[in-house]
């Protein structure tokens, strides 16, 4: 994943209404939508939540372990 990861409640700079435990928008690398989605769009912002969440990437699936280690689980 190319998006930066920001800590939750990362101090100042949150849009109005965002509290310290709420997801934080971070800039994400993206080149915009292809023509089938209409005109080019601004970069996607990733809303980051605490602790990350399990995803599958390529042929591997990962889940964060209790001690912050990453364990592989089956596709």
């Amino acid at each position: 994943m190319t998006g930066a990861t920001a800590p939750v409640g990362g101090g100042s700079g949150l849009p109005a209404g965002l509290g310290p435990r709420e997801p934080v928008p971070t800039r994400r690398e993206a080149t915009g939508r292809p023509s089938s989605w209409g005109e080019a769009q601004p970069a996607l912002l990733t809303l980051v939540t605490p602790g990350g969440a399990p995803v599958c990437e390529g042929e591997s699936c990962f889940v964060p372990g209790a001690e912050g280690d990453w364990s592989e689980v089956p596709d």
Partner: protein
Amino acid sequence: MNDSVKVDVWSDIACPWCYIGKRKFEAGVSAFGGPVEVEYHSFELSPDTPVDFEGSEAEFLSQHKGLPVEQAQQMIDQVAGIAAQVDLHYDYDALRHTNTVKAHQVIHLAKQHGKQLEMVERLFAAYFERGEHVGQDDSLADLAAEVGIDRDEVRATLRDDSQLAAVRADQSQAQAYGINGVPFFVIDGKYGVSGAQDPAAFEQVLRQVVALRESTPAEVAEAAQRADDDAAADAGVTR
């Protein structure tokens, strides 16, 4: 502005976190309470997977990752246990490991019939819970028929690869967004959420996106820049 929140979901049928994430997302939407429009998009985690693999999932994993079968089985049991926490009953003994590109084509066909969500759910259940094949034409035609799509239309679609361009367009869009892991949720076409988050996180994000609609694009961009700066500063502190 449309009151409903649009959520575009990139996922693969053969992705255990995508089905778990689907359940968690649905619970988050329910807690959010507002109108949400969901559309699924194609993502192939392992496009080189053969349509048929003879053997158990533990054997596949063992061969593919070079692990002892016992360790592969342990990993399988772990994810099945997590699935059970959201009332999904993964049956890895029965699971038919396969290529999912045809299933993605069926999902696109189902969208044209207004039955995409039912089709996605049926395919996930077929793959993870019921040991049904989601890579063969006849099996996919049967599954699609269960949600009201004509078998012959499914067979013709798969024979002609007539939805393959739609699958590839989804994959191109994922690449443009920088998505390389699933599930991935794009909300209102502007905000991304990665992974099988907890329902409360999805609920919070949906509320946040609605709140951000009151902000101008410049304000949102400025807030994002400040968040980036904060992250960089925090990274500097912990380095």
